[in-house]
């Protein structure tokens, strides 16, 4: 992954900043150019809440190379308080603790690095509340 690509996504990855449609009020994260609900094209900036709940989850035993050191890891779809859904890892817990409906909060973590000459990529993961 190239450094400009990481830089381009800094607003959502590092600051959890999304947008709200000026026409219908739909909250979108990460940002896009057209509202998925009403087709609106104008938005206000909208910070994401830092808590949500687990919708569905799995424990991954064979993952991509960049996550080899984290195997097994827990992956979940999380619904934030404002209805926005995201996919990320649930960390600092055991698979048996994870259930649909449980509350989680965002934590700031290293996601991957590009190797010796590249940048370290940070972003959000989730932790049980």
């Amino acid at each position, binding site marked *: 992954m190239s450094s400009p690509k990481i830089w381009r996504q800094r607003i959502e990855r590092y600051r959890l900043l999304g947008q709200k449609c000026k026409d219908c009020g739909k909250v979108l994260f990460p940002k896009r150019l057209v509202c*998925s609900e009403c087709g609106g094209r104008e938005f206000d900036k909208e910070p994401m809440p830092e808590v949500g709940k687990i919708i569905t989850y*799995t424990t991954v035993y064979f993952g991509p190379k960049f996550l080899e050191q984290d195997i097994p890891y827990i992956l979940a*779809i999380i619904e934030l308080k404002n209805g926005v859904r995201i*996919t*990320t*890892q649930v960390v600092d817990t055991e698979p048996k603790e994870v259930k649909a409906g449980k509350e989680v909060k965002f934590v700031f973590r290293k996601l991957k690095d590009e190797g010796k000459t590249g940048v370290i990529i940070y972003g959000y993961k989730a932790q049980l509340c």
Partner: protein
Amino acid sequence: MREVCIIGAGLTRFKEHWSSSLRDLFVEAALKAIDDAKVSEIASMYVGSMSSGLFVEQEHIGPMLVEYLGVKNVPAVRVESACASGSLAFRMGFIEVASGLSDIVLVSGVEKMTDCEDVTSALAAAADVENEVFFGATFPALYALIARAHMDSYGTTREQLAAVSVKNHKNGAKNPDAQFQREVSLDAVLNSVMIADPLTILQCSPISDGAAVMILAPLDMAKKMTDKVVKITGSGAATDTIALHSRKEIASLDAVRLSAERAYNMARKKPEDIDVCEVHDCFSIAELVAIEELGFVKKGKSGKFVEEGNTEIGGKIPINTSGGLKAKGHPVGATGIAQIIEIYKQLTGNAGERQVKDAKIGMTQNMGGTGASSVVHIMEVV
């Protein structure tokens, strides 16, 4: 719109073809199809391939395959819609013949996966790379998220998921073109290595090489060329969000339902009219959700339906008589065409040991990603 028929088919066995390249596999299957159809010329060609670039570092395969097949200067289009590339290539060829632009059109799919060192990452490119894969999603993991949602919503059990693999391996054991021609027990499926909970490795389709090719022609020509004419009466396609998490219902596949509705409407058929069906069982849960969305069983009831044997050969609606992606193999771009070939064999009475009695109307469902694209076809004996 002209009526369109299948006049020939050919495929390689699906397996790890260590001594064959992508072009070798395609030409082997294409020659079989051309010989089967007894045609001397083709007007146009469509090739479904998910990712020849990531799998074998070769793009621009349309002209390359035209050249190696020896059908000089024929126009060729590569079609990509992840694992639905094959059936979308079929649909494009169907449209070209139906429109009257061309008469004899070759439709195909090919994938050479075993030359690639990191197949998991190449396949992951069919998900939302920035918003799913970046955070650790793999395909088994995404389908495991669907499986968990189905279990939580409808009480579907691990045994019911595993029953899909047992049935598909039972069918694959009767298919000489299948990658795995052996049966597996329920215990073996449940106790095999866990990939992404609740999906064990025997609930995941394998990495495969293979090609599948069909020849299409308008009805009037087809009648003169073959005595077993199979007509395409329905073709439906639909899309959904690229990321699984953007959908309201995680345990549903809207694109599958919509593509089926469109095909049923075009063919003027209902689920109960279908005699045999191939669905996209890339993972056990995918087959359960697919048979619900195709209307063979009510939402949430698929686990019990499969467990009771309704989807076996001789059951209410035989599903994946070929062995499905699980046992037949899943060279992604070739899968959609291979599904249609299985139905073609069933409708022409050439399915051997796995023949469904009196099969007159058949259906295929092929999807890309976690159901972000889905293509359904309905075929009937004329």
